[in-house]
């Protein structure tokens, strides 16, 4: 009874990958299944993906989410929850699900309703908040999302946050008591970084042999600070650097235009979307990886750079400051072009220092294996199930 059968709800799950949520749920669910838990993941359907499948012991249910025309994203989310909830009753009943784990506000309606109908506990992971993503809530659309996040936390037995930074944000913006929150960081699977790999051949796809390769990976949005990196490139003309900026986002066209304005089109390559194997190859190849985030609940990109062996330059925003340590596993800089350029120069002009950061990072990142993260999550589950078992709130 203390080891629950878990139903995870997440609107993102591979092959639908929008942000960090999909890889998180994918890896966490697999790691929990590996520990012997029965884990189900319910998510939206995706063209070409199977409606039902078992992935490394995890039972995945992709549920039709496009039956109804909807006027905007928030209304689509609400209707997606109607579909999820309708299909999940039989899955809960036939698999003796005893705990629901919701990831972010997008599945709140379905998760909360199912919790009450089956009288089973609900745990929520808040990966980020609307207030944090938008720098405050400024209109009714954002207020609605923020209010939904608050509702989800009120209805949850416990809340999981990926960093102390996020826990503070959830406490201050959603009014959650600190004692309700467990901090469980994100994890990383090192195996895909250890495949056979011709470094020189791969590198030649992105940079000349005499160029140093500086990497950015992330969504091209304001909160990632990528514009500051583009501005910093103009201060590093004296070094022979190829900047590779990977990702998609609303800033993409503006960044390309700015690079052109700076006359650096041959030195700054905005790649757009790249597959995971190629991105991992870049982490293994880069001479430096820049993480110039302004807002970062956790910063899984830091774990990827650490695992791949790319020395890190970072602002240390949010969760990054908890993963990385100044002059041990990263160079910390301010969110300005001058400071970012200074950090990059520090790594690229001192090979001994860069090697030290790389070695220390590769040692440190071992504490972020998914097996460890799953054990911590299981600790939260067990605590909830123990309290639930001792309480009166049950179906009968």
């Amino acid at each position, binding site marked *: 009874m203390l080891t629950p059968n878990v139903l995870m709800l997440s609107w993102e799950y591979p092959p639908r990958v929008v942000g960090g949520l999909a890889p998180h749920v994918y890896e966490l669910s697999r790691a929990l299944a590996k520990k012997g838990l029965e884990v189900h993941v319910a998510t939206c359907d995706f063209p070409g993906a199977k409606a039902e499948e078992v992935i490394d012991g995890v039972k995945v249910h992709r549920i039709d989410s496009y*039956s*109804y*025309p*909807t*006027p*905007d994203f*928030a*209304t689509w989310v*609400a*209707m997606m*929850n*109607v579909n999820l*909830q*309708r299909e999940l*009753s*039989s899955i*809960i*009943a036939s698999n003796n699900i005893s705990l629901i784990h919701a990831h972010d506000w997008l599945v*709140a*309606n*379905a998760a*909360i*309703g*199912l919790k*009450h*109908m*089956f*009288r089973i506990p609900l745990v929520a992971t808040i990966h980020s908040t609307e207030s944090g993503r938008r720098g405050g809530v400024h209109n*009714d*659309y954002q*207020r*609605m999302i923020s*209010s*939904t996040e608050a*509702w989800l936390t*009120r209805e949850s037995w416990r809340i999981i946050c990926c960093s102390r930074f996020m826990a503070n944000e959830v406490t201050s913006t959603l009014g959650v008591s600190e004692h309700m929150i467990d901090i469980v960081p994100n994890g990383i699977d090192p195996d895909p970084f250890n495949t056979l790999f011709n470094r020189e051949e791969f590198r030649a796809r992105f940079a000349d042999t005499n160029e140093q390769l500086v990497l950015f990976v992330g969504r091209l949005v304001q909160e990632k600070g990528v514009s500051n990196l583009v501005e910093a490139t103009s201060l590093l003309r004296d070094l022979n650097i190829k900047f590779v900026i990977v990702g998609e986002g609303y800033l993409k066209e503006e960044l390309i235009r700015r690079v052109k304005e700076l006359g650096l089109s041959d030195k700054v390559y905005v790649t757009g979307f790249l597959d995971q194997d190629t991105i991992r190859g870049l982490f293994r190849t880069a001479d430096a990886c820049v993480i110039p985030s302004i807002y970062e609940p956790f910063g899984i990109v830091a774990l990827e750079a650490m695992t791949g062996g790319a020395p890190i330059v970072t602002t240390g925003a949010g969760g990054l400051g908890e993963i990385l340590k100044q002059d041990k596993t990263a160079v910390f800089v301010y969110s300005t072009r001058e400071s970012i350029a200074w950090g990059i120069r520090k790594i690229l002009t001192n090979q001994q220092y860069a090697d030290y950061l790389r070695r220390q990072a590769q040692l440190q990142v071992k504490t972020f294996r998914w097996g460890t993260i799953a054990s911590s999550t299981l600790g939260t589950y067990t605590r909830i199930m123990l309290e639930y078992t001792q309480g009166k709130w049950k*179906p*009968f």
Partner: protein
Amino acid sequence: MSNPIILTWEYPPRIIGDLAHHVENLTTGLSKAKIPVYVVTCHDAPYQHDKRSDLLDVYWTSNPVVPHISVITWCLSLNSEVERVISDIFYDKSRKIDLIDIHDWHFIPASTSLKRALGIPFIFTIHSLESQRFPGSTSPLSSCIQGLESLGIAESDLVITKTDSMKNEITVNHGIPQDKVIVIPPTEPNWIRDTLKSYRRVAFKGV
């Protein structure tokens, strides 16, 4: 017959159109017939219970999310709260809930989920359809409401309408059998008796 739940987004003092008066007449009639009824409705106040008589309990739900950007988002978060309130009634009453009678489209998602999760059958009483309220509208919002109406018609155990023409529209447009839709005009003297008969048909599967 014991404990039907009537689910409506209007009930006095919340009066928006004719629905509130109709449901009030229905609950008054059921009380006279000695049928204990729970009304679950919404009201902008904290969730509370109002025992109006030995036979009539009214439960107010308030939206857990404020504000909203559309009637759909408002309605769908309220549905989860309705599920909470009805589940609490269901467990408190040791499952002695025979059916849910929902009035118009607003709580179709909750009724569908409660049926699937807890096995409570439901009747969809249709006072008007989106296609009648906004003829020819193809706006995404209208399409969304029509989608919910279709869901309610497909998932419900019985549909009650007021007129033969509406019955005809529902059976033709939604491809459901004639005997799934019955007509009970609330102007007829025996409409409470007929409503009760339909409740028994659903609660006891025609027994």
